[in-house]
């Protein structure tokens, strides 16, 4: 008996010491961050939401990326050697690729050794985005824009096997390290598209080996690698040992030098050895983890706001003495309560939509859930990009119960009489439910009955994509810093399963959009954007909510943190000061 007991103790002891060695190896830099939503997997084709896109971009890379430090947001080469040469007619883009970029070592390659990434892979990945069998969530990005791509998609729609060998005039490998794109019409935002996770470069071998499981078997060129993904609450990435020579930027925005953001200039990326992403859906849980130093950074939860940020003074002393810093986050996004315009209740029912929008008390929601610091949206384009009109007051975007009641009566439902109960779907979490209950209460004031339905994120996406909702709650974050990216949410060819989940259809708006979308960055385009901004406020296709403003908190040991709207791929710039961490974590 004693013997066995001793044996057990010994085994436990060995096991314990092993785990310790594995996770806390000497001086190993581990970055701990969190994401608030379930990740759909690692297929760039499916990376339509911010959270999945973030994970994809740790493993995969595209031709371009956003410069980490420069503002306004500027593109920089990623897998491309330099920015492309563009023909004078604005239709042909020629990219030179970096040499010696290797895919991650993976069983899909001969001997498990990752081979060099070439122009053929870029062409393959763009074709894959257009593959009719895959129904990529990112198809809208290139739909009708690359010469011959739509033809290829249509031709293969009924084919048993999609023919990836066929040449497409619009995307060609000139030689092993040169790719040429030919566009059907000028599309000034095309380069932004090449900085999005959708256009990441994937190796054919992995797609063919893993098939449907490719989603869970990431094989990219990126700074981090990870094992087969299982739907768990934690994703652990390790530094890609064969990562190409990519260096921390040596120039940035004014003031970056003073903030210490350029201390690591010229250092080889990534700067951390390991990256742990925890999927924590509850804000409260994330917060407690952050306070314990188990997460290196997070946004301040609304409930905590007045304990954390003292008006006029900034971060409270409780936090500053622990070395915690605060960074303001002015996002490029818009939240909205969407109508499904395909539903018979809302189709062409302008007055009803306007009535509901006018009954929506944005200030109250702002005060309760955004601590009064977010910007109530008057239309669809957020501040800080051309097309947003500062100081514009939307006709139906500010609380006016009398007007709302009048509009509702004009719509044929005096005091809500004759109006059916409206089902409202939203991604369930406690805060979203409370926000929805508040929305429900606001609508009840003019006699409209709302039936809230909390569902999971994938469920919500499915309902929206199959047009099965009446109303739903959603937000849109910029893919690239251009109003076009917000206006396309209302463009009718982008209807579900595209990004126009509300299925808004307005020929007038479509015409303006088509005109603006091929224009270069000129004052005329800005004027047209502004016209569309006002038009969207008038037609109330959605109940516009907020452009969110928040604060990010970071621990003393997290280095090189700079707020960016384009979070894809930024984890390679972060660094951990191990000395500060070991000193300060005791104080928490």
């Amino acid at each position: 008996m004693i013997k066995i007991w001793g044996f057990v103790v010994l085994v436990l002891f060995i096991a314990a010491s092993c785990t310790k060695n594995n996770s806390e190896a000497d001086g190993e830099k581990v970055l701990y961050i969190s994401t608030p939503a379930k990740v759909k997997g690692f297929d760039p084709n499916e990376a339509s939401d911010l959270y999945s896109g973030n994970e994809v971009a740790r493993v995969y890379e595209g031709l371009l990326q956003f410069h980490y430090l420069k503002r306004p947001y500027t593109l920089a080469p990623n897998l491309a050697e330099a920015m492309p040469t563009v023909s004078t007619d604005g239709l042909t883009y020629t990219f030179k690729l970096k040499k010696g970029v290797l895919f991650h070592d993976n069983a899909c390659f001969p001997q498990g050794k990752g081979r060099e990434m070439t122009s053929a892979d870029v062409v393959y990945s763009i074709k894959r985005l257009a593959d009719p069998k895959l129904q990529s969530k990112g198809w809208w990005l290139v739909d009708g824009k690359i010469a011959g791509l739509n033809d290829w998609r249509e031709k293969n729609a009924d084919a048993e096997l999609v023919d990836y060998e066929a040449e497409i005039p619009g995307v060609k490998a000139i030689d092993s390290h040169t790719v040429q794109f030919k566009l059907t019409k000028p599309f000034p935002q095309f380069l932004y598209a090449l900085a999005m996770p959708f256009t990441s470069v994937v190796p054919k071998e992995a797609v063919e080996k893993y098939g449907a499981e490719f989603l869970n078997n990431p094989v990219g060129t990126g700074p981090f690698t990870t094992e087969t993904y299982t739907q768990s609450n934690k994703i652990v990435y390790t530094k890609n040992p064969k990562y190409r020579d990519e260096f921390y930027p040596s120039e940035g925005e004014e003031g970056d030098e003073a903030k210490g953001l350029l201390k690591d200039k010229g250092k080889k990326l990534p700067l951390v050895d390991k990256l742990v992403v925890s999927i924590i859906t509850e804000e409260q849980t994330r917060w407690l983890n952050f306070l314990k130093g188990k997460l290196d950074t997070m946004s301040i939860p609304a409930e905590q706001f007045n304990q954390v940020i003292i008006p006029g003074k900034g971060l409270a002393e409780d936090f500053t003495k622990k070395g915690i810093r605060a960074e303001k986050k002015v996002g490029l996004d818009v939240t909205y309560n969407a109508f499904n315009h395909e539903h018979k209740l809302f189709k062409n029912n302008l007055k009803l939509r306007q009535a509901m929008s006018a009954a929506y008390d944005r200030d109250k929601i702002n005060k309760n859930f955004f601590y009064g610091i977010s910007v109530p949206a008057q239309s669809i384009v957020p501040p800080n990009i051309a097309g947003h009109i500062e100081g514009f007051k939307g006709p139906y975007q500010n609380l006016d119960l009398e007007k709302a009641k009048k509009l509702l009566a004009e719509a044929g439902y005096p005091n809500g009489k004759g109006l059916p109960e409206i089902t409202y779907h939203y991604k369930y979490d406690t805060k979203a439910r409370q926000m929805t209950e508040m929305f429900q209460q606001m609508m009840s004031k003019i006699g409209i009955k709302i039936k809230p339905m909390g569902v999971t994120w994938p469920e919500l996406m499915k309902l929206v994509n199959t047009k099965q909702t009446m109303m739903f709650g959603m937000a849109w974050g910029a893919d690239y810093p251009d109003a076009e990216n917000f206006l396309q949410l209302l463009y009718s060819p982008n209807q579900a399963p595209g990004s126009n989940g509300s299925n808004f259809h307005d020929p007038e708006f479509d015409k303006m959009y088509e005109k603006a979308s091929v224009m270069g960055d000129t004052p005329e385009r800005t004027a047209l954007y502004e016209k569309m901004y006002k038009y969207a406020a008038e037609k109330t296709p959605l109940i516009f909510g907020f452009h969110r403003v928040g604060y990010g908190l970071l621990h003393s040991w997290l280095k090189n943190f700079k707020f960016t709207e384009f979070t894809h791929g930024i984890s390679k710039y972060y660094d951990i000061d191990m000395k500060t961490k070991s000193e300060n974590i005791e104080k928490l």
Partner: protein
Amino acid sequence: MSQKETKSLWAEALQRILKDKVATLSLVIVVIYALIALLVSLGLVAGDWATAAGPENMAPNGDFWLGTDFLGRNVFKKVIYGTQVAMSVGLVSSLIAIPIGISLGAVAGYFGGIVDEAVVWFYTTFSSIPTIMLLISISFILGKGINSVYIALGLTSWVHLCRLVRGEVIKHKNRDYVQAVTAIGGGHTKKLFRHILPNIFHIVIINASLQFQVAIKSEVILSYLGLGVQDVPSWGKMIDDAKQELIQGHWWQLAGATIAMFIIVLAFNILGDALRDALDPKLKGKDA
């Protein structure tokens, strides 16, 4: 003769419960909760829970016994409305589970052989699926709302009763009184439903009272997880709200919901025990 005996069993059971003060109190509590639920269902009380009755997040006071929530709604009314949700879930899910449990258990026990094997196989397999997973998947299939909660809880909670009934029926089916029925030409249906079932019905009663509180607790958990009722108050949702409110010092939603739940669950547990003692034929005629 036998009918008179049975009657006196129930009468005696009631007598015994009334002798036990704690059990009586529990019975009274259950009746009060049931009454509240009934009144809410009829729209006589707490129908206006959704309106903002006062300022937001007000601490308990003379006007609002349990304060108000973040929308200025009266928390006391939400607790009352939550009672209706909880009690109706307990009742309806029991009404679904009990017939399934009785019929499958009775048939299996009575006929034995292949029928028995099939039923036993079915419920063993069924009960090896973790209940909460099953609840979640059923509510995914049926969509959200109180009806799916009824069905989900009803469909997942019959196994225990089924086992008990099967065992009892096996015990009873060869007893003298059943053989007597066979001798005078009674068929299977008559034997099973007219004679055996009434003799084992006390088990159903005891089980129902315990089942009731399990259903109430499950509803709270489901609603807490966002899988339960959607647009009416529930104790689970109130506890969910409290997660974020406690840190701001707003304890009253949590207090209201948990106390209401604690009392009814405790009452059902005590009552279940008392019923077991009172209805156990072996204890009949003896002092408890």
